[in-house]
Protein backbone atom coordinates (compact mmCIF):
# COMPACT_ATOMS: atom_id res chain seq x y z
CA UNK A 1 0.00 0.00 0.00
CA UNK A 2 3.06 2.27 -0.06
CA UNK A 3 1.90 3.55 -3.48
CA UNK A 4 -1.39 4.86 -2.04
CA UNK A 5 -1.45 8.40 -0.67
CA UNK A 6 -4.14 8.54 2.01
CA UNK A 7 -6.52 11.49 2.17
CA UNK A 8 -6.66 11.21 5.96
CA UNK A 9 -4.43 9.64 8.61
CA UNK A 10 -6.03 8.36 11.83
CA UNK A 11 -3.98 7.56 14.90
CA UNK A 12 -6.10 5.04 16.81
CA UNK A 13 -3.31 3.71 18.97
CA UNK A 14 -4.37 3.00 22.54
CA UNK A 15 -8.09 2.97 21.71
CA UNK A 16 -9.93 -0.20 22.70
CA UNK A 17 -12.55 -1.88 20.53
CA UNK A 18 -14.98 -0.85 19.22
CA UNK A 19 -13.59 2.71 19.30
CA UNK A 20 -11.14 2.20 16.36
CA UNK A 21 -14.11 1.14 14.22
CA UNK A 22 -16.17 4.05 15.57
CA UNK A 23 -13.45 6.57 14.70
CA UNK A 24 -13.08 5.20 11.14
CA UNK A 25 -16.84 5.35 10.70
CA UNK A 26 -17.04 8.91 12.08
CA UNK A 27 -14.29 10.03 9.70
CA UNK A 28 -15.25 8.24 6.50
CA UNK A 29 -17.37 11.18 5.35
CA UNK A 30 -14.36 13.47 5.86
CA UNK A 31 -12.77 11.98 2.73
CA UNK A 32 -14.32 12.19 -0.75
CA UNK A 33 -15.91 9.16 -2.41
CA UNK A 34 -12.93 7.15 -3.67
CA UNK A 35 -10.75 8.70 -0.96
CA UNK A 36 -8.65 6.63 1.43
CA UNK A 37 -8.15 6.64 5.21
CA UNK A 38 -4.96 5.17 6.66
CA UNK A 39 -5.68 4.11 10.23
CA UNK A 40 -3.24 2.69 12.77
CA UNK A 41 -4.66 0.82 15.77
CA UNK A 42 -3.15 -1.26 18.56
CA UNK A 43 -6.20 -3.26 19.63
CA UNK A 44 -6.15 -6.68 17.96
CA UNK A 45 -9.96 -6.72 17.88
CA UNK A 46 -9.83 -4.06 15.16
CA UNK A 47 -8.51 -6.69 12.70
CA UNK A 48 -12.00 -8.19 12.56
CA UNK A 49 -14.05 -5.12 13.53
CA UNK A 50 -12.92 -2.67 10.83
CA UNK A 51 -13.30 -5.12 7.89
CA UNK A 52 -16.73 -6.16 9.25
CA UNK A 53 -17.80 -2.51 9.51
CA UNK A 54 -16.54 -1.84 5.96
CA UNK A 55 -18.40 -4.82 4.50
CA UNK A 56 -21.64 -3.99 6.29
CA UNK A 57 -21.53 -0.32 5.25
CA UNK A 58 -20.44 -0.93 1.65
CA UNK A 59 -16.94 0.52 2.00
CA UNK A 60 -13.67 -1.26 1.22
CA UNK A 61 -10.70 -2.30 3.31
CA UNK A 62 -7.89 -2.22 0.74
CA UNK A 63 -5.45 -3.76 3.20
CA UNK A 64 -5.25 -4.76 6.87
CA UNK A 65 -1.79 -5.66 8.10
CA UNK A 66 -0.06 -6.32 11.39
CA UNK A 67 3.17 -4.35 11.51
CA UNK A 68 5.03 -5.06 14.73
CA UNK A 69 2.54 -4.40 17.49
CA UNK A 70 0.32 -2.19 15.31
CA UNK A 71 -2.54 -2.88 12.94
CA UNK A 72 -2.51 -0.74 9.80
CA UNK A 73 -5.62 -0.29 7.66
CA UNK A 74 -6.21 1.39 4.31
CA UNK A 75 -9.95 2.03 4.04
CA UNK A 76 -11.51 3.36 0.83
CA UNK A 77 -14.77 5.29 0.85
CA UNK A 78 -17.01 3.73 -1.79
CA UNK A 79 -20.26 5.66 -1.36
Amino acid at each position, binding site marked *: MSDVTPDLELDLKGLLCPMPMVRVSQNITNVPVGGVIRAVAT*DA*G*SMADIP*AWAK*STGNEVMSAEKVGGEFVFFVKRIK
Partner: protein
Amino acid sequence: MEKQTIDSMVGVLDARMNRQLKQYMDICARCAICKDACHQYVATQDMKYLPARRAELLRQIYRRYFTKAGQFLPALYEAREPDENLMDELYESTYACTGCRRCTYYCPFSIDTGWITSVSKGVLIAAGRGNEMLGQLADAALFKADNMDVFDEIIVNGFKDVVRELEEELGRPVAIPVDKQGADILYVALAGSHSIKPAAVIFDAAGASWTLSKFEAANYGFFFGDPAKAKLIADRFMNEAKRLGVKEVVITECGHAYRVAEMFYEAWAKEKMPFKVRHILEVIDEYIKDGRITVDPKGIAEKVTYHDPCQIGRNGGIYEQPRDIMHAIAPDFVDMTPNRETQWCCGGGGGIVAMEEFNDVRLKSGGKKVEQIKATGAKLLACPCENCRLQIEELSKVHDLGLRIVPVMELVAEALR
Protein backbone atom coordinates in the same frame (compact mmCIF):
# COMPACT_ATOMS: atom_id res chain seq x y z
CA MET B 1 -45.07 13.09 8.12
CA GLU B 2 -46.38 10.38 5.81
CA LYS B 3 -49.28 8.31 7.11
CA GLN B 4 -47.36 5.10 6.46
CA THR B 5 -44.49 6.28 8.70
CA ILE B 6 -46.86 7.32 11.47
CA ASP B 7 -48.69 3.98 11.21
CA SER B 8 -45.38 2.20 11.55
CA MET B 9 -44.43 4.23 14.64
CA VAL B 10 -47.83 3.71 16.26
CA GLY B 11 -47.55 0.01 15.41
CA VAL B 12 -44.28 -0.23 17.36
CA LEU B 13 -45.80 1.59 20.32
CA ASP B 14 -48.81 -0.74 20.20
CA ALA B 15 -46.59 -3.82 20.03
CA ARG B 16 -44.54 -2.66 23.03
CA MET B 17 -47.62 -1.60 25.03
CA ASN B 18 -48.14 -3.63 28.16
CA ARG B 19 -49.52 -2.93 31.62
CA GLN B 20 -46.17 -1.59 32.79
CA LEU B 21 -45.74 0.86 29.90
CA LYS B 22 -49.39 1.95 30.06
CA GLN B 23 -48.91 2.79 33.72
CA TYR B 24 -45.79 4.83 32.91
CA MET B 25 -47.71 6.64 30.20
CA ASP B 26 -50.61 7.50 32.51
CA ILE B 27 -49.28 8.28 35.98
CA CYS B 28 -46.56 10.95 35.88
CA ALA B 29 -47.56 13.60 38.47
CA ARG B 30 -45.07 16.13 37.07
CA CYS B 31 -43.51 16.56 40.48
CA ALA B 32 -40.11 16.97 38.74
CA ILE B 33 -38.23 15.18 41.53
CA CYS B 34 -36.37 13.50 38.66
CA LYS B 35 -34.72 16.80 37.73
CA ASP B 36 -32.33 16.52 40.68
CA ALA B 37 -31.64 12.86 39.97
CA CYS B 38 -30.52 13.14 36.33
CA HIS B 39 -26.81 13.90 35.80
CA GLN B 40 -27.57 15.40 32.38
CA TYR B 41 -30.27 17.76 33.61
CA VAL B 42 -28.24 18.76 36.68
CA ALA B 43 -25.28 19.61 34.42
CA THR B 44 -27.17 21.45 31.68
CA GLN B 45 -30.52 22.62 33.15
CA ASP B 46 -31.82 21.86 29.65
CA MET B 47 -35.46 20.67 29.56
CA LYS B 48 -34.76 18.13 26.84
CA TYR B 49 -32.67 16.14 29.33
CA LEU B 50 -35.29 16.21 32.10
CA PRO B 51 -36.40 12.58 32.56
CA ALA B 52 -40.08 13.54 32.77
CA ARG B 53 -39.69 15.48 29.52
CA ARG B 54 -38.05 12.54 27.77
CA ALA B 55 -41.09 10.46 28.72
CA GLU B 56 -43.55 13.24 27.95
CA LEU B 57 -42.57 13.25 24.27
CA LEU B 58 -43.62 9.62 23.94
CA ARG B 59 -46.70 10.30 26.07
CA GLN B 60 -47.83 12.96 23.59
CA ILE B 61 -47.85 10.34 20.81
CA TYR B 62 -49.48 7.82 23.14
CA ARG B 63 -52.32 10.22 24.05
CA ARG B 64 -52.96 11.05 20.39
CA TYR B 65 -53.38 7.43 19.31
CA PHE B 66 -54.23 5.45 22.44
CA THR B 67 -56.64 7.67 24.40
CA LYS B 68 -60.11 8.91 23.44
CA ALA B 69 -59.47 12.34 24.96
CA GLY B 70 -56.29 12.74 22.92
CA GLN B 71 -57.99 11.58 19.72
CA PHE B 72 -60.90 14.04 19.99
CA LEU B 73 -59.39 17.00 21.88
CA PRO B 74 -55.64 16.74 21.26
CA ALA B 75 -54.79 20.34 22.14
CA LEU B 76 -56.63 20.18 25.45
CA TYR B 77 -55.11 16.86 26.50
CA GLU B 78 -51.57 17.54 25.27
CA ALA B 79 -51.73 14.94 22.54
CA ARG B 80 -49.54 15.48 19.53
CA GLU B 81 -49.35 14.06 16.06
CA PRO B 82 -45.71 13.27 15.23
CA ASP B 83 -44.01 15.81 12.97
CA GLU B 84 -40.37 16.53 12.21
CA ASN B 85 -40.08 18.85 15.24
CA LEU B 86 -41.37 16.20 17.61
CA MET B 87 -39.08 13.60 16.04
CA ASP B 88 -36.05 15.90 16.43
CA GLU B 89 -36.89 16.45 20.10
CA LEU B 90 -37.55 12.76 20.66
CA TYR B 91 -34.25 11.81 19.00
CA GLU B 92 -32.15 14.17 21.13
CA SER B 93 -33.87 13.34 24.39
CA THR B 94 -33.86 9.61 23.77
CA TYR B 95 -30.42 8.79 22.38
CA ALA B 96 -28.72 11.15 24.86
CA CYS B 97 -30.18 9.15 27.78
CA THR B 98 -27.58 6.83 29.28
CA GLY B 99 -30.23 4.53 30.75
CA CYS B 100 -28.75 4.87 34.23
CA ARG B 101 -32.22 4.82 35.82
CA ARG B 102 -31.23 7.09 38.71
CA CYS B 103 -34.47 8.96 37.97
CA THR B 104 -36.42 5.73 38.49
CA TYR B 105 -34.86 5.29 41.92
CA TYR B 106 -36.07 8.73 43.02
CA CYS B 107 -39.44 8.77 41.20
CA PRO B 108 -42.32 8.37 43.74
CA PHE B 109 -44.07 6.13 41.18
CA SER B 110 -40.89 4.33 40.07
CA ILE B 111 -41.51 5.36 36.47
CA ASP B 112 -38.82 3.60 34.47
CA THR B 113 -37.52 6.25 32.07
CA GLY B 114 -34.94 3.76 30.78
CA TRP B 115 -37.76 1.49 29.69
CA ILE B 116 -39.63 4.39 28.12
CA THR B 117 -36.56 5.53 26.15
CA SER B 118 -36.06 1.97 24.89
CA VAL B 119 -39.60 2.14 23.48
CA SER B 120 -38.91 5.62 22.08
CA LYS B 121 -35.88 4.21 20.28
CA GLY B 122 -38.13 1.58 18.67
CA VAL B 123 -40.50 4.35 17.56
CA LEU B 124 -37.58 6.36 16.14
CA ILE B 125 -36.23 3.33 14.28
CA ALA B 126 -39.70 2.76 12.78
CA ALA B 127 -39.57 6.35 11.50
CA GLY B 128 -36.10 5.81 10.02
CA ARG B 129 -34.62 8.03 12.75
CA GLY B 130 -32.52 5.46 14.64
CA ASN B 131 -28.97 6.54 15.48
CA GLU B 132 -26.83 5.77 12.44
CA MET B 133 -23.60 5.00 14.31
CA LEU B 134 -25.20 2.56 16.74
CA GLY B 135 -27.00 0.93 13.81
CA GLN B 136 -23.68 0.53 11.96
CA LEU B 137 -21.99 -0.98 15.02
CA ALA B 138 -24.85 -3.45 15.46
CA ASP B 139 -24.75 -4.40 11.76
CA ALA B 140 -20.96 -4.84 11.85
CA ALA B 141 -21.27 -7.22 14.84
CA LEU B 142 -23.94 -9.21 12.99
CA PHE B 143 -21.87 -9.28 9.80
CA LYS B 144 -18.85 -10.56 11.71
CA ALA B 145 -20.88 -13.26 13.43
CA ASP B 146 -22.62 -14.30 10.20
CA ASN B 147 -19.33 -14.62 8.32
CA MET B 148 -17.26 -16.61 10.78
CA ASP B 149 -15.70 -18.53 7.88
CA VAL B 150 -13.97 -15.23 6.99
CA PHE B 151 -13.24 -14.00 10.51
CA ASP B 152 -12.63 -17.24 12.45
CA GLU B 153 -8.93 -17.44 11.56
CA ILE B 154 -8.37 -13.74 12.37
CA ILE B 155 -10.08 -14.12 15.76
CA VAL B 156 -8.31 -17.36 16.70
CA ASN B 157 -4.94 -15.91 15.62
CA GLY B 158 -5.69 -12.92 17.85
CA PHE B 159 -6.21 -15.33 20.78
CA LYS B 160 -2.87 -17.02 19.99
CA ASP B 161 -1.18 -13.60 20.12
CA VAL B 162 -2.71 -13.06 23.58
CA VAL B 163 -1.30 -16.42 24.75
CA ARG B 164 2.17 -15.39 23.47
CA GLU B 165 1.95 -11.96 25.13
CA LEU B 166 0.87 -13.52 28.44
CA GLU B 167 3.81 -15.96 28.38
CA GLU B 168 6.22 -13.07 27.75
CA GLU B 169 4.68 -11.00 30.57
CA LEU B 170 4.40 -13.79 33.17
CA GLY B 171 7.35 -15.99 32.18
CA ARG B 172 5.06 -19.04 32.17
CA PRO B 173 2.38 -20.35 29.83
CA VAL B 174 -1.30 -19.64 30.49
CA ALA B 175 -3.71 -21.55 28.28
CA ILE B 176 -6.69 -19.89 26.59
CA PRO B 177 -9.00 -22.76 25.60
CA VAL B 178 -11.33 -22.18 22.67
CA ASP B 179 -14.20 -24.45 21.54
CA LYS B 180 -13.66 -26.74 24.53
CA GLN B 181 -16.60 -29.12 24.63
CA GLY B 182 -17.93 -29.77 28.14
CA ALA B 183 -16.09 -26.90 29.84
CA ASP B 184 -17.86 -25.58 32.94
CA ILE B 185 -17.63 -21.92 31.89
CA LEU B 186 -18.00 -20.08 28.60
CA TYR B 187 -16.28 -16.74 29.17
CA VAL B 188 -17.56 -13.99 26.87
CA ALA B 189 -15.04 -11.16 26.54
CA LEU B 190 -14.77 -7.98 24.51
CA ALA B 191 -12.92 -7.71 21.21
CA GLY B 192 -9.63 -6.55 22.74
CA SER B 193 -7.07 -8.54 24.74
CA HIS B 194 -7.51 -6.35 27.84
CA SER B 195 -10.67 -8.23 28.76
CA ILE B 196 -9.12 -11.66 28.10
CA LYS B 197 -5.71 -11.57 29.80
CA PRO B 198 -6.65 -10.95 33.45
CA ALA B 199 -9.57 -13.39 33.26
CA ALA B 200 -7.30 -16.07 31.77
CA VAL B 201 -4.78 -15.59 34.59
CA ILE B 202 -7.52 -15.82 37.25
CA PHE B 203 -9.23 -18.86 35.69
CA ASP B 204 -5.82 -20.51 35.43
CA ALA B 205 -5.02 -19.78 39.10
CA ALA B 206 -8.41 -21.15 40.16
CA GLY B 207 -7.96 -24.31 38.09
CA ALA B 208 -11.26 -23.52 36.39
CA SER B 209 -12.64 -25.53 33.51
CA TRP B 210 -13.33 -22.77 30.99
CA THR B 211 -13.36 -21.86 27.34
CA LEU B 212 -13.25 -18.50 25.61
CA SER B 213 -16.10 -17.46 23.35
CA LYS B 214 -15.27 -16.51 19.76
CA PHE B 215 -18.00 -13.88 19.99
CA GLU B 216 -17.86 -10.62 21.86
CA ALA B 217 -20.10 -9.57 24.70
CA ALA B 218 -20.77 -5.98 23.55
CA ASN B 219 -24.24 -5.51 22.09
CA TYR B 220 -24.84 -2.38 20.04
CA GLY B 221 -28.22 -3.72 18.95
CA PHE B 222 -29.31 -3.10 22.55
CA PHE B 223 -27.99 0.48 22.54
CA PHE B 224 -29.49 1.08 19.09
CA GLY B 225 -32.88 0.10 20.51
CA ASP B 226 -33.71 -2.88 18.33
CA PRO B 227 -34.47 -5.95 20.48
CA ALA B 228 -34.50 -8.21 17.40
CA LYS B 229 -30.93 -7.22 16.46
CA ALA B 230 -29.85 -7.34 20.09
CA LYS B 231 -31.14 -10.90 20.37
CA LEU B 232 -29.40 -11.93 17.14
CA ILE B 233 -26.08 -10.57 18.45
CA ALA B 234 -26.49 -12.36 21.80
CA ASP B 235 -27.70 -15.55 20.02
CA ARG B 236 -24.15 -16.16 18.84
CA PHE B 237 -22.58 -16.80 22.22
CA MET B 238 -25.75 -18.24 23.74
CA ASN B 239 -25.89 -20.85 20.95
CA GLU B 240 -22.15 -21.46 21.39
CA ALA B 241 -22.78 -22.10 25.11
CA LYS B 242 -25.54 -24.59 24.26
CA ARG B 243 -23.35 -26.35 21.68
CA LEU B 244 -20.43 -26.68 24.10
CA GLY B 245 -22.69 -27.83 26.94
CA VAL B 246 -21.29 -25.40 29.52
CA LYS B 247 -22.76 -24.99 32.99
CA GLU B 248 -22.55 -21.22 32.97
CA VAL B 249 -21.91 -18.21 30.78
CA VAL B 250 -19.65 -15.65 32.43
CA ILE B 251 -19.78 -12.13 31.04
CA THR B 252 -16.72 -9.91 31.19
CA GLU B 253 -16.57 -6.47 32.84
CA CYS B 254 -19.09 -4.89 30.48
CA GLY B 255 -22.26 -3.51 32.06
CA HIS B 256 -24.85 -3.66 29.30
CA ALA B 257 -23.60 -7.02 28.04
CA TYR B 258 -24.23 -8.54 31.47
CA ARG B 259 -27.70 -7.06 31.59
CA VAL B 260 -28.57 -8.31 28.09
CA ALA B 261 -27.42 -11.85 28.87
CA GLU B 262 -28.80 -12.11 32.40
CA MET B 263 -31.96 -10.02 32.30
CA PHE B 264 -33.31 -9.79 28.76
CA TYR B 265 -32.15 -12.72 26.68
CA GLU B 266 -34.48 -15.44 27.97
CA ALA B 267 -37.51 -13.17 27.47
CA TRP B 268 -36.39 -12.36 23.92
CA ALA B 269 -35.64 -16.02 23.14
CA LYS B 270 -38.84 -17.22 24.88
CA GLU B 271 -36.96 -20.16 26.37
CA LYS B 272 -35.12 -21.06 29.57
CA MET B 273 -31.39 -21.44 28.99
CA PRO B 274 -29.78 -24.68 30.21
CA PHE B 275 -27.04 -22.72 32.01
CA LYS B 276 -26.80 -19.78 34.38
CA VAL B 277 -25.35 -16.36 33.56
CA ARG B 278 -23.01 -14.53 35.90
CA HIS B 279 -20.81 -11.46 35.84
CA ILE B 280 -17.07 -12.17 36.09
CA LEU B 281 -16.91 -10.28 39.41
CA GLU B 282 -19.44 -12.66 40.97
CA VAL B 283 -17.18 -15.54 39.95
CA ILE B 284 -13.97 -13.91 41.19
CA ASP B 285 -15.60 -13.02 44.52
CA GLU B 286 -16.61 -16.66 44.91
CA TYR B 287 -13.09 -17.86 44.04
CA ILE B 288 -11.61 -15.63 46.76
CA LYS B 289 -14.19 -16.59 49.41
CA ASP B 290 -13.91 -20.33 48.59
CA GLY B 291 -10.12 -20.16 48.66
CA ARG B 292 -9.79 -21.22 45.03
CA ILE B 293 -7.47 -18.28 44.49
CA THR B 294 -5.21 -16.65 47.05
CA VAL B 295 -4.71 -12.92 46.93
CA ASP B 296 -2.30 -10.66 48.76
CA PRO B 297 -4.39 -8.51 51.15
CA LYS B 298 -1.89 -5.71 50.58
CA GLY B 299 -1.58 -6.47 46.85
CA ILE B 300 -2.82 -3.02 45.82
CA ALA B 301 -1.06 -0.68 48.20
CA GLU B 302 -2.16 2.54 46.50
CA LYS B 303 -5.37 4.32 47.58
CA VAL B 304 -8.09 3.04 45.25
CA THR B 305 -11.76 3.82 44.71
CA TYR B 306 -14.52 2.00 42.86
CA HIS B 307 -17.10 3.21 40.35
CA ASP B 308 -20.52 1.48 40.38
CA PRO B 309 -21.47 1.13 36.70
CA CYS B 310 -25.22 1.70 36.41
CA GLN B 311 -25.82 -1.45 34.39
CA ILE B 312 -24.34 -3.84 36.94
CA GLY B 313 -25.09 -1.73 40.04
CA ARG B 314 -28.42 0.06 40.09
CA ASN B 315 -29.73 -1.98 37.15
CA GLY B 316 -28.03 -5.25 37.99
CA GLY B 317 -27.89 -5.44 41.78
CA ILE B 318 -24.16 -6.23 41.95
CA TYR B 319 -22.87 -3.96 44.72
CA GLU B 320 -21.16 -6.05 47.37
CA GLN B 321 -19.10 -8.56 45.36
CA PRO B 322 -16.80 -5.91 43.83
CA ARG B 323 -16.44 -4.20 47.22
CA ASP B 324 -15.60 -7.51 48.92
CA ILE B 325 -12.98 -8.11 46.22
CA MET B 326 -11.51 -4.65 46.72
CA HIS B 327 -11.39 -5.11 50.51
CA ALA B 328 -9.60 -8.44 49.96
CA ILE B 329 -6.76 -6.90 47.93
CA ALA B 330 -6.58 -3.19 48.76
CA PRO B 331 -6.14 -2.00 52.39
CA ASP B 332 -6.63 1.61 51.28
CA PHE B 333 -9.92 1.11 49.44
CA VAL B 334 -12.24 4.10 49.77
CA ASP B 335 -15.82 4.26 48.52
CA MET B 336 -17.29 7.23 46.69
CA THR B 337 -20.22 9.18 48.10
CA PRO B 338 -22.98 8.60 47.14
CA ASN B 339 -22.61 4.98 46.12
CA ARG B 340 -24.57 1.82 45.32
CA GLU B 341 -28.23 2.65 44.43
CA THR B 342 -27.67 6.40 44.50
CA GLN B 343 -24.30 6.62 42.76
CA TRP B 344 -24.03 9.15 39.95
CA CYS B 345 -23.82 7.93 36.36
CA CYS B 346 -20.43 8.75 34.82
CA GLY B 347 -22.28 10.00 31.73
CA GLY B 348 -20.90 7.37 29.32
CA GLY B 349 -23.64 4.73 29.18
CA GLY B 350 -26.26 3.83 26.60
CA GLY B 351 -23.78 3.87 23.71
CA ILE B 352 -23.33 7.64 24.03
CA VAL B 353 -19.53 7.32 23.86
CA ALA B 354 -19.93 6.26 20.23
CA MET B 355 -22.26 9.14 19.29
CA GLU B 356 -20.13 12.20 18.53
CA GLU B 357 -23.15 14.52 18.34
CA PHE B 358 -23.66 14.16 22.11
CA ASN B 359 -20.03 14.87 23.09
CA ASP B 360 -20.85 18.19 24.78
CA VAL B 361 -23.62 16.92 27.02
CA ARG B 362 -21.67 13.71 27.68
CA LEU B 363 -18.63 15.55 29.00
CA LYS B 364 -20.65 18.14 30.93
CA SER B 365 -22.78 15.44 32.53
CA GLY B 366 -19.69 13.73 33.93
CA GLY B 367 -19.24 16.63 36.35
CA LYS B 368 -20.87 14.85 39.30
CA LYS B 369 -18.64 11.81 38.81
CA VAL B 370 -15.56 14.04 38.65
CA GLU B 371 -16.56 15.65 41.97
CA GLN B 372 -17.07 12.22 43.54
CA ILE B 373 -13.71 10.91 42.37
CA LYS B 374 -11.84 14.04 43.47
CA ALA B 375 -13.39 13.82 46.94
CA THR B 376 -11.90 10.35 47.49
CA GLY B 377 -8.35 11.57 46.87
CA ALA B 378 -7.61 8.34 44.96
CA LYS B 379 -5.64 8.31 41.73
CA LEU B 380 -6.49 4.69 41.01
CA LEU B 381 -10.03 3.81 39.95
CA ALA B 382 -11.40 0.28 39.64
CA CYS B 383 -14.17 0.23 37.08
CA PRO B 384 -15.88 -2.91 35.77
CA CYS B 385 -17.49 -1.49 32.62
CA GLU B 386 -15.90 -0.62 29.28
CA ASN B 387 -18.20 2.31 28.46
CA CYS B 388 -17.63 3.85 31.90
CA ARG B 389 -13.87 3.41 31.51
CA LEU B 390 -13.90 5.18 28.12
CA GLN B 391 -15.91 8.05 29.58
CA ILE B 392 -13.89 8.43 32.79
CA GLU B 393 -10.60 8.25 30.83
CA GLU B 394 -11.81 11.26 28.85
CA LEU B 395 -13.08 13.05 31.97
CA SER B 396 -9.69 12.44 33.58
CA LYS B 397 -7.95 14.11 30.63
CA VAL B 398 -10.38 17.05 30.44
CA HIS B 399 -10.29 17.69 34.21
CA ASP B 400 -6.62 16.76 34.61
CA LEU B 401 -7.39 14.14 37.25
CA GLY B 402 -4.33 11.99 36.52
CA LEU B 403 -6.33 8.81 37.08
CA ARG B 404 -5.31 5.25 36.30
CA ILE B 405 -8.55 3.46 35.42
CA VAL B 406 -8.46 -0.31 35.37
CA PRO B 407 -10.84 -3.27 35.35
CA VAL B 408 -11.31 -4.86 38.80
CA MET B 409 -10.07 -8.20 37.47
CA GLU B 410 -6.78 -6.59 36.41
CA LEU B 411 -6.17 -5.55 40.02
CA VAL B 412 -7.06 -9.07 41.20
CA ALA B 413 -4.61 -10.59 38.69
CA GLU B 414 -1.98 -8.15 39.99
CA ALA B 415 -2.67 -9.20 43.61
CA LEU B 416 -2.62 -12.96 42.98
CA ARG B 417 -0.14 -14.91 45.10
